[in-house]
């Protein structure tokens, strides 16, 4: 209140935007001072990414003004915004899988010497950028398509930094990052702040918002609800503004011993190119959490069980019978569902409708005609149950907000009534309200007899949801922990600072 802030770097006044007649943003005001981190929070579909794209020139606003350092600006495209010194880390990766890291980082402003692209310079600068954010293991000439999601996220960050922007927008920069990488990002944000760069920070992780920002703006249904000083607010208050109601911060009750059914899935001595000596049991009615660092083999495990990159050694039995999960199709037939962590790449068919996306798996497994109407009804119910917000089920899914796309993918697999569910980061990018709805849903599925395997980098979620936790390291199972374990226990096993616990 009292101390005068420096003149704002960015001022938004009355920003409005409609898509096909649907009002997505309405009269939004916001400002960012140099060296300030201004957080923007809100439910999925609240309009956060749309607002960020307006600031960075991706969309033109229908109304309102954008001022940069006091000067009104009209951006005719992203290029104009970049020229004006605005960089953005997009929520959905903005990368070309077929090109190298360096080519992606400098796309649109390749360094040139005497009119020609200077490849050496481009590689050197990229390597320096990567090093500056603590990523030294990533070669600048690696092809982006071969990188994991976390590394792609790092490339996306480097790409925004390469612009040398004075205003940097981060739209869920940590969604795909593990904890130690989030630490690196914190360091980066502070260094940028010291250089007087203004930051707009969008995240569903309230911890980050409280750790980093000085002010927080809450959006709801395209309107600004409030802007508060971070120091004078609490997480509860923030959630109330976002969701419009109180939210219990508790996870649903775990399975009682008598709830646990027979063993559904047994993996013995299994391995493939990325996994070794995997022994695992999964029982009906339980939620088995899988912890570990990025690249420790968590996703490889899920992909092996779903037949994407099958086990090449060892045995798998399902309900007591040996099975060979050779392809996703065989896995689906055996009652296994898999929610991938790579939503954009593997999760959605962007140009198909929400409904078609949700029906994709059911249509693939069931005969074409039988019970089609009933399936559609069920899928529509599921879409409502996971609280998908958009302009309706017939809208192309690429126009949904990121979190809402994720919910559609969940509905798709739930529609199969799977007996085994493999979740890889199921609540990534999902808002607090819907997150607890999904937690309830997962628990209800388990209670109804499904066996759930859940990979999560979100430690509170992992500990709060799991009945048992298996921690992976270097493609092997490092150990198993009970539900009562602490975050430190998980981390210690994941990085290998303790002797492996007997599994």
């Amino acid at each position, binding site marked *: 209140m009292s101390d005068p802030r420096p003149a704002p770097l960015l001022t938004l006044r009355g920003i409005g935007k409609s898509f096909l007649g649907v009002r997505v943003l309405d009269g939004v005001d916001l400002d960012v001072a140099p060296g300030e981190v201004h957080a923007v929070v809100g439910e999925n579909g609240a309009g956060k990414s749309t607002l960020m794209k307006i600031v960075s020139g991706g969309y033109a606003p229908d109304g309102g003004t954008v001022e940069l350092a006091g000067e009104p600006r009209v951006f005719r495209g992203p290029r104009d915004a970049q020229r004006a010194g605005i960089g953005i880390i997009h929520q959905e990766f903005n990368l070309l899988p077929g090109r190298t890291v360096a080519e992606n980082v400098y796309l649109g402003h390749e360094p040139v010497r005497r009119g020609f692209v200077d*490849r050496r310079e481009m590689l050197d600068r990229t390597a320096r950028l990567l090093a500056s954010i603590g990523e030294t293991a990533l070669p600048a000439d690696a092809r982006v398509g071969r990188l994991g999601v976390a590394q792609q996220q790092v490339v996306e960050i480097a790409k925004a930094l390469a612009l040398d922007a004075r205003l940097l927008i981060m739209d869920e920069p940590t969604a795909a990052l593990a904890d130690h990488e989030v630490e690196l990002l914190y360091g980066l944000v502070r260094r940028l702040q010291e250089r007087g760069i203004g930051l707009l920070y969008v995240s569903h992780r309230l911890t980050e918002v409280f750790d980093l920002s000085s002010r927080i703006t809450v959006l709801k249904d395209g309107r600004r609800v409030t802007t508060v000083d971070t120091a004078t607010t609490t997480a509860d208050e923030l959630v109330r503004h976002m969701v419009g109601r109180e939210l219990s911060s508790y996870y649903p009750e775990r399975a009682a011993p008598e709830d646990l059914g027979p063993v559904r899935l047994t993996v013995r001595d299994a391995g493939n190119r990325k996994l070794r000596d995997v022994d695992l049991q999964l029982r009906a009615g339980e939620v088995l959490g899988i912890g570990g660092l990025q690249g420790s083999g968590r996703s490889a495990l899920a992909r092996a069980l779903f037949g994407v990159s099958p086990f090449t050694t060892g045995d798998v039995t399902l309900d007591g019978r040996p099975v060979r999960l050779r392809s996703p199709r065989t896995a689906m037939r055996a009652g296994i569902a898999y929610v991938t962590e790579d939503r954009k790449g593997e999760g959605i068919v962007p140009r198909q409708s929400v409904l078609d996306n949700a029906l994709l798996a059911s249509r693939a497994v069931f005969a074409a005609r039988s019970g089609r109407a009933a399936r559609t009804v069920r899928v529509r119910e599921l879409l409502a149950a996971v609280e998908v917000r958009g302009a309706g089920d017939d809208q192309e899914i690429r126009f949904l907000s990121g979190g809402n796309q994720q919910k559609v993918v969940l509905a798709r697999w739930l529609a199969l009534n799977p007996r085994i569910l493999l979740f890889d980061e199921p609540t990534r990018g999902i808002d607090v309200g819907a997150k607890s709805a999904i937690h309830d849903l997962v628990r209800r599925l388990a209670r109804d007899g499904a066996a759930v395997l859940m990979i999560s980098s979100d430690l509170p979620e992992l500990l709060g949801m799991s009945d048992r936790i298996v921690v992976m390291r270097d493609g092997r199972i490092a150990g198993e922990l009970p539900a009562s374990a602490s975050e430190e226990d998980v981390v210690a096993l994941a990085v290998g600072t303790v002797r492996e616990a007997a599994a």
Partner: protein
Amino acid sequence: MSALSLLPARRPVPGVFVALTLTLVIGWLVVLVDGGQLFNQSTTVSLLHVAAGLGLVAVGQTLVILGGSLDLSVAYVISLSTLVAAETMNGSDGALMPAIGLALAVSAAVGLLNGLLVTKFRVNAFIATLGVGLLLKGYLDSGYDGPAGTTSPTLVQTLGYQRIGPVPLSFLLLVAVTGAAWFALSRTRFGHHLVAVGGDPEVARLSGVRNDRVLVTAHVLCSLCAGLAGIYLASRLGSGAPRVGTEGLYDLESIAAVVIGGTALAGGRGGVIGTVGGVLLLASIDAIFNQLEVDAFFKQVIRGVIIIAAVAVYARRAMRKAA
């Protein structure tokens, strides 16, 4: 993530060169058994001539396909260019340079039209370039019954027939154009942006690339290449020929060469070196079958099989890479 997959992206020799070598070896043996000689002076020269004509067109086609577009008007641009060149020269050497300039300018204008239709008017590339092609066809059909104009003797003697050993000057022209295109793709902003636009237009746009400008440029370059091929054909034929482009199937053959050469039809992946491999492969098959004197129908069947096989092989590779 295993350490192996983090190795820098290597650019392997396109598979088309393996296929080319195999074809030449097998062809050589078969022709030998048949009592002929595949690589004598005259067959080699004519093979390289065929490759030069198709190659010029196909290199241009590669650019638009890389950018996610396509050009079906090239065959008509070629015919038009032969006529503009030959009629302007009118048999004398005096108008050589202006004639070449005019033929190229006309071609570039057609490319500009294609590019603007595809970008500013958002017409599907297939339809837009087909439409422009038919427009040119209308003009050619109504204006010409047969050959017209006379190519300058100097051009006929140089670009048309001069060679260094068994290598025709025209093939060296192809090598130069290919080199320039390769350089443009890997060492200029235009090249980087073109591949990006073809790979994912939205990613390119959000990264600050001016998609429209890039695609229009690619279309102009593609038509220029077709125009150059026309000038070359005029130097071979000694006159302008209103149907040389369509009769030579330059539209479909150039696309086939691009695809055989490993460039993705959807855009964003590939390059001109592979295309030249594809051109040489098609030209070699021609040469071999000409030597064996098999019938034209059978020849077409074999080419069809090769094109399908090539696409299937690339598709499998792409799958394996994704896994």
